[in-house]
């Protein structure tokens, strides 16, 4: 399982991706207010996550897929990827955060909330993208299509997360946000349950 | 309400809305009949 982690995706590519996106952002907007900062943060993160998740499943295509099939159970295979993606996401988040702060200021006031939101989001996003990446890898056809198509599925997490982050940035006042956090965690649990049930079907080939 | 002595008088009532109703009803019934026709055709093919 550790071997899985090591061989994931190329780190430099991701760093480059994050840096370039934030730089583009900076050039496009002279000064962003809190709301836009939050949205941009998440969009950059989500795009990078989609990209890396897609890459992380490259070794399950074709013949290599059969190799892994013979040595471990599908759950182990899948969840090692998920864990790898999770840490990658965490890394990318930190990176994006630093880059954005460098270029456009740092409007987050409530750090604990922001951190909690982020962790909950990383869990959900890594599960979601791993699931879709897995699905994608099994298709021989067009690759780039699926991340685009996964956008609507992102929305529950993304919308909640943007709302909560905006609160943590002080751009929106809402005292009852605990329910939103629970919803986020519930969605995470839902995605987890679904992936547990469905991955074995994707695996068979 | 006035007495309805001819069909004409019936349809002219209420700002001729009944004409609209009649038209839309006709369209709808036509579609339903077409669906029933498809249904029966499929049934026939399935019997083979």
């Amino acid at each position, binding site marked *: 399982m550790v071997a899985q982690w090591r061989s994931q995706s190329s780190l430099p590519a991701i760093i480059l991706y994050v840096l370039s996106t934030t730089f583009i952002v900076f050039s496009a907007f002279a000064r962003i207010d809190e709301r836009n900062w939050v949205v941009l943060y998440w969009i950059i993160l989500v795009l990078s996550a989609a990209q890396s998740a897609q890459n992380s499943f490259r070794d399950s295509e074709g013949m290599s897929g059969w190799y892994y099939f013979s040595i471990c159970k599908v759950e182990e295979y899948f969840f090692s990827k998920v864990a790898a993606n999770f840490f990658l996401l965490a890394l990318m988040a930190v990176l994006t955060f630093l880059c954005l702060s460098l270029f456009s200021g740092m409007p987050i006031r409530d750090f604990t909330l922001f951190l909690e939101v982020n962790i909950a989001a990383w869990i959900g996003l890594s599960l979601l993208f791993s699931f879709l990446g897995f699905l994608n890898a099994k298709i021989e056809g067009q690759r780039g299509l699926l991340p685009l198509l996964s956008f609507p*599925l992102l929305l529950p997490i993304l919308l909640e997360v943007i709302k909560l982050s905006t609160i943590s940035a002080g751009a929106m006042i809402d005292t009852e946000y605990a329910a939103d956090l629970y919803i986020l965690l519930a969605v995470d649990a839902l995605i987890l349950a679904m992936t547990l049930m469905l991955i074995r079907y994707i695996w068979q080939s | 309400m006035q007495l309805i002595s001819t069909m004409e008088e019936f349809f002219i009532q209420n700002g001729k809305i009944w004409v609209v109703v009649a038209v839309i009803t006709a369209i709808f019934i036509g579609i339903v009949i077409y669906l029933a026709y498809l249904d029966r055709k499929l049934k026939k093919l399935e019997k083979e």
Partner: protein
Amino acid sequence: MQLNWTFKIFGAALILYSLIWGLLIPLKPGVVSVEPRKATAGQNVEIEYEAYNVDYLKDEEIEVSAWLLLDSVRTLQATDIQITGSQKAVAFFQLPYFKESDPSVMSATLVITDSIHGYALLPSAIIIQKKLQDSADATQNPLFTQVQIDYPEGSTFPFRNILKETIRNTYYHVPLWFSMIILFLLSAYKSIKYLRTKKKSHDIWARSYAEIAIILGVLGLITGAIWARFTWGAFWSWDVKQFTSAVALLIYLSYFILRSSISDPDKRARLTASYNIFAFALLIPLLFIIPRLTDSLHPGNGGNPAMGGEDLDSTMRWVFYPAVIGWILMGLWLSELKARYLVLRSKKEEEFMSVWT
């Protein structure tokens, strides 16, 4: 799921019923416009109003009354009403002076009623500026009475100022949405059954349900946009319901794109079934999450919601629920036709292939 003939005819009949009665039952009367909109306390004011769905000239003996509701206690009756047209009249009011404790501006609701059509009201019809009684002013005796609320005989649909006749769209636009959700549910269910049994027909049924659901969803969006253009002002206003339906459609469009990108039929069935179940499971919280977001972002859509759920009059229910059931049944019928056609076609293809091998 194959439907009995009786259900199919019943479904069509229910829709026909909702079509006819939805168009024919008249609306309650309403107040369309009021002139002037502002007045000062203590004035005598002539309010000229135009009503909807009334005909004052119909009967010589008609009795028209009007009230201004200032607050729960002060209900001012018009001293005189002159009918100036079949839908217009002028009501004369003696506005009282305000008390010390009153706010500087008060808005009054106009209530009109007549012996033939029943009552109608317009909230915030007139804004009244505060003025306290000067001892030099002549004492006025405004007429404070109870409002008489008359209901005419027969069934009517409620009158909403922004909607007017378009309230009837509730019976034609909203059931599409209900039907779409049920069909998506059935599609996910069939996907589950496919994954468990690997029978090809389940995959075909799942796909048929999804297809008809998308058709209904698109129709729902289009009809909703048309309705919105003339009531909310624009075809698309990022309303919660519009957004959620668009997202649902995107998810299932992806389902079909996924289907078309895999050539091996077993693999296609398997992978798309997983996607279907996953997507549907995620769709449900989405339906709950999105309304939460707009609640805290802005105060909701001005005007009336397109979904009839919250403000269904009891008369409307009699036409609405049958319409919903009718459209669900029609959706089931349409999906069934599609599925049976696809099953037949796949059988023909298998026969064809077996001839070659």
